């Protein structure tokens, strides 16, 4: 099921939160929806689900606007607010309310509590839940109807590294089952390890969309070595690597990944003390994309 956003615009008084935005989200992959704070990600996702009415333009899921879906929770599971619970309800109470609303049996509630690792906390009041448990419960709620499409607004907020790797695994499995998975984030570093495609927006407008491998650009590796001069020469002689000397014992290499650098150094008998892959930040991505755009103009 494909999500299609077409010329979407949302104005709040003088503020234009989303401006003439168009993109599609494909099934079977995890798509990252990236943009700095206030870029319009949440607003766009709320328009996809009919919670916010667009000023103009349309958003459809499998060809239909959200409000026209026969049983929306069967098609789309969405998570917005990390904290949308009655604090006095238990996890099971919360899920049972929405199971009733969607017409799903209690066995589905039990299954999801197990699947998301909440079985032990199931009968505790949500007021005492940690951020990670709340995020899991949000996901469980969204997955009640076994939807083909998942929309998650900043699901990585407040998750520890273990929670992140768990989330990565879950989203990967869901995408591999052929579902459409859209995950927003304001921090590229948080989701770049698990997105296949990205849609990048800024100030409500599209900056770039496409496979991350294409947009990410060549890898950037930082090397600390006592044999800087020799290694630089060896790398420069190799294929398509740009080498830059940062200091007497540090080099920055663009176009070769860390294993290739290490292998090359080993083959020449050169020493490496530290090898770090530099993750591109959203700012760097913007910088590159805008200079690329300027270059192709």
């Amino acid at each position, binding site marked *: 099921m494909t999500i299609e956003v077409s010329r979407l615009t949302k104005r709040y008084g003088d503020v234009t939160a989303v401006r003439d935005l168009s993109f599609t989200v494909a099934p079977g992959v995890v798509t990252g929806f990236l943009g700095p704070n206030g870029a319009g990600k949440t607003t766009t996702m709320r328009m996809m689900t009919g919670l*916010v*009415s667009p000023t103009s333009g349309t958003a459809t899921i499998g060809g239909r606007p959200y409000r026209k879906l026969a049983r929306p929770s069967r098609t*789309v599971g969405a998570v917005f607010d990390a904290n949308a619970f009655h604090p006095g309800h238990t996890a099971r109470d919360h899920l049972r309310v929405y199971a009733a609303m969607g017409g799903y049996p209690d066995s589905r509630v039990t299954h999801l509590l197990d699947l998301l690792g909440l079985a032990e906390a199931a009968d505790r009041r949500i007021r005492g839940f940690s951020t990670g448990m709340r995020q899991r419960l949000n996901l469980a709620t969204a997955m009640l109807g076994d939807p083909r499409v998942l929309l998650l607004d900043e699901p990585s907020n407040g998750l520890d590294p273990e929670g992140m790797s768990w989330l990565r695994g879950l989203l990967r499995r869901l995408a591999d089952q052929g579902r459409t998975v859209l995950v927003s984030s304001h921090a590229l570093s948080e989701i770049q390890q698990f997105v296949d495609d990205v849609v990048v927006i800024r100030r409500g407008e599209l900056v770039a969309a496409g496979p991350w491998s294409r947009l990410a650009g060549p890898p950037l590796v930082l090397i600390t070595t006592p044999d800087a001069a020799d290694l630089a020469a060896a790398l420069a002689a190799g294929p398509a690597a740009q080498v830059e000397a940062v200091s007497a014992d540090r080099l920055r290499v663009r176009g070769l990944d860390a294993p290739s650098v290490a292998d090359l150094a080993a083959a020449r008998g050169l020493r490496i003390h530290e090898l770090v892959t530099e993750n591109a930040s959203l700012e760097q991505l913007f910088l590159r994309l805008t200079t690329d755009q300027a270059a192709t103009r």
Partner: protein
Amino acid sequence: MKLLVRAELRRLLATRMWSALLLAAAVLGGAMFGAMALVGPENFDPPMPGLDTETGLRAILGILGYTAFVPAAAGAIAATSEHRHHTAAVTFLFAPRRGRVLAAKLATYAVAGLAYGVVLAGSAGAALFTVAAARGISLGMPAGTVLALLARIGVAMMVYVLIGAGMGALIRNQVAALCVVIGYLYVGEPVLMMIPGVNALYPILPGGATAALTDFTYLADAMSDQLGSGTVPLLPPVVGGLVLSAYALTAAAIAVLIPMRRDVT
């Protein structure tokens, strides 16, 4: 619609407020009302006619009717809960037709309100007849009439849950809704009653309609005495009930129509 009502029932029954509410009904009806009957209105300060007179019996039942702020507050709390806890977005994701969600809530609260009314009126009736038997008083009205009045008080409680819920759905902010509902019942309406001319409206105000539904004229009479105006006639009981329901439904209808397209953020 059936699914939505089931969901709202589950939502309500899972909260502590629900058990607290039923407990309140039993305490107000059994304990408080029972204690009042045991002391006897003739020993109140100022003294009122005793339970063996019709006036005294009606007055003490009318006081029971004045506990309507409890179900009204409960209705307001229930109806504003989703706004307060930010679950409205989740609910509208599951049920994008927002009017139906609110209709399901009102249906659910009507059932809950009726349960409250049954417990309140039932425990009050039990207390009244027990006390009368124990004190050896023959009540100032036939048992059938007393039961009918109690039943009307029970129904009034249900309507007050809906009034509270309707106002809550309209105002959305929980504290504000509680202030408006309780403030009106306790301050707003008595003040309105002081204003000459406006007090002629009393019969169609919520308090007057409740008084009509429960045949409780004690307060209206006292007030007309004090103001030296002629007696303000109350509506017939059924009409009073309808007027009350109209308040609840109007608040709810406005609440349904206004936020239908409002952005949920």
